[in-house]
């Protein structure tokens, strides 16, 4: 397909995609933080339970 009249769509899409990409990177960092915190908490609960 030749871009033609959709040239504007391409550049606009690129900007939107980059914005979404940045948000997703932030959410990925959040996942890692949640993962670290919950694993630590669940492990602590397990140890308390084992005692």
């Amino acid at each position, binding site marked *: *397909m*030749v*871009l033609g*009249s*959709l040239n504007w*769509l*391409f550049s606009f*899409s*690129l900007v*939107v*995609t980059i914005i*979404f*990409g940045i*948000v*997703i990177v932030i*959410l*990925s960092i*959040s*996942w890692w*933080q*949640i*993962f670290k*915190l*919950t*694993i630590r*908490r*669940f492990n*602590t*609960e397990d140890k308390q339970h084992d005692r």
Partner: protein
Amino acid sequence: MIDNLYVIAIITIWLSIFMTVVTLSGGVIFIFKHLQHTNIDNLPPLKRYPRVTLVVPAHNEELVIQDTVQSILRLNYPLDRFELLVYADNCNDHTADRVRELKQIKEFKNHNFRVIERTGTGGKAGVLNDALKVSTGEYLGVYDADAAPEKNALYFLVQKVLENPERYAAAFGRNKTRNYQQNFLTRCINLEIVNTQRIQHTGLWQLFKIGRIPGTNFIINKKIVQSIGGWNNGALTEDTAISFSLMRSGKLIALAHRAEAFQQEPETLFAYYNQRKRWARGNYEVILDNLKHLFDRTSWRIKLEVFYYVCTFFWFNAAIIISNTIFILNMILAGVQTIFPQVHQLVSLGTPLSVLFMVNWLMMFFLYLLQMNIALASDYGQETVKNFFYTLVSYFTYAQLFIIVSIAAFWAILRDKITGKRHTQWYKTQRF
């Protein structure tokens, strides 16, 4: 034509990414805010203990009813502040006898519970309306016959409504799958439920104070339910219908995330298909009933809910079907092109725009994995390598079942409209 399709397609993808990002962000904020440990062995007393009538609608549930009733009777709530009504609704098995047997157990001698054998119509909504008439509680709590609450579930539900009793007409908890290790289907259902409860519910509550009454594990203010006319008799999804009614009356349905119950999920494709088709059909009916509120002066929460449902059940579904059709057509044309070079594909995959589409799809897929993993990480024992692989596989298998189910439900509604008869039967979810 194809240009317009491109524009519609990219807007659809962005909208779905946007909606996912918003709910996921809300869910993440909620998780961070509620990470602290609650010592459930040493809970502070509540400001007051309103009287609660717990209702269990049971239709041929002899296999599971005793477990559920025992769990309810062991709830951490003052014995004189709650009563339990088990409705053996049009049963032709021993559900009522199984409940009566519990009366003989010493532990439950002083508990206020009884079984009511019912032969009326209206299904679960009919049972709840009957209970509304005879209950003595300030609040009505509902547990499905297969949903065993954790011992503090009622405590947390009441604690939540008491935070703002004027505004919070109801509080709902979380449901967990107790038979998730049974097979591939139950594992996928479990993933879906963990995601719905840990991201969707929390995200919508955190950002918009929007809650939806599930079928089980919730309490609701009796006077408010009476003021809106009770449950919609015969509704296929009485929970969605009453959620909309409550929100229309300006009340909120609060999330009590620590109130947990364990329920059974379908173990066969047949049971799953019939359960989900009924849900999808019920949801379609509620959406169509509430569509008019998109354009009137109803609360913005109703508009947001209707928009959300319309996007999920109509827009995104249609988009997936069209894109799958184009994809298959394109693959066929690519095959034909190898024999007849003069034939062209509908969409070429080498252009910059197509690459951008591919990037957006990959982003959507990554977002799905991220959402699932955040949900799993926040739930004890769920973030495992096994569940990660199930998450990957279920995207291409289990998740696609939703399309089949929603098409079947939509067709059932169309057929009923054309013929003027209601063909949909209520398939009881099989217990194990």
